[in-house]
């Protein structure tokens, strides 16, 4: 079964619905790409959530600190001048809702899937690497001048990726929220 078009459609709908419902914002879908699991340098906020079952993998949302603060301020109707615990929590919950919705969609094709508690990372010049060899589907969404990337990788259990974090910067930290 070619999961890619199903995943892209599910990710797109889930992201649009979460932004529309929880933030009252219409995001614009941008480029869709496929990536391998090679290391890439990241700056900003990255949130991960694991999926497990007969198929397993990881869902991820990443954005700039500016967009993370904007998401938090809009979602919670509060001031968010800098990335703090509240901002990280808001991004983690956004990821939980987007990937949770995709999980529900995919269960009709792949059987029951479990969802982990999200982990969110904020830092500069850190790298993430997938231990598996599967391809990641990356969908970009635009909110005014900022871009949000939603990624997912799903593969039959046994060759699914687990994300490892390598900090190359000075301010990387991980929080379970």
């Amino acid at each position, binding site marked *: 079964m070619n999961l890619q078009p199903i995943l892209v459609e599910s990710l797109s709908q889930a992201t649009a619905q*979460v932004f529309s*419902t929880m933030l009252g914002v219409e995001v614009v879908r941008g480029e869709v790409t496929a990536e391998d699991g090679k290391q890439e340098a990241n700056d900003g906020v990255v949130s991960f959530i694991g999926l497990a079952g007969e198929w397993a993998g990881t869902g991820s949302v990443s954005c700039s600190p500016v967009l993370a603060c904007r998401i938090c301020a809009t979602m919670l109707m509060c001031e968010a001048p800098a990335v703090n615990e509240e901002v990280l929590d808001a991004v983690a919950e956004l990821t939980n809702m987007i990937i949770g*919705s995709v*999980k529900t969609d995919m269960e009709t094709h792949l059987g029951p899937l479990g969802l982990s508690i999200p982990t969110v990372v904020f830092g500069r010049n850190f790298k993430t690497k997938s231990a598996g060899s599967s391809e990641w589907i990356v969908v970009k969404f635009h909110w005014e001048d900022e871009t949000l990337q939603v990624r997912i990788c799903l593969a039959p259990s046994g060759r699914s990726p687990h994300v490892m974090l390598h900090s190359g910067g000075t301010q990387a930290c991980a929080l379970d929220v």
Partner: protein
Amino acid sequence: MESDVLVVDDSAAIRKILQRVLRQTGMAIRTIHEAGDGQEALEVMNAHKVDLVLTDINMPKMDGLQFLASVKASAHWRQVPVVMITTEGGETKVGEAVKLGAAGYVRKPFTADQIKEKLAGILESAVPL
């Protein structure tokens, strides 16, 4: 009669949103208690009178289904309505929650109106504790 509500979610963001939504429902609410997981929620229920619970399912330490089972197994709390508010949309989790005695189920993402609609009537029809 004013009600005391308990909101259970490991996300402080969702607890904050639910607090706001609950205040907007027009329901007579005296206090909104918060807990970050099922274990903490049971501690809150031991310490305070609670008339309604809104809980997530996926949480650390004790998840929402384990918490629901504990509430429904207690002679003291079994009449307290528990509404599940969660990303879990699979039939298995929904079925388990219903089987355990959940009073309702709302999927995240949610609108304020969906929460209001779900809660309409629940507090009025609840058996006085």
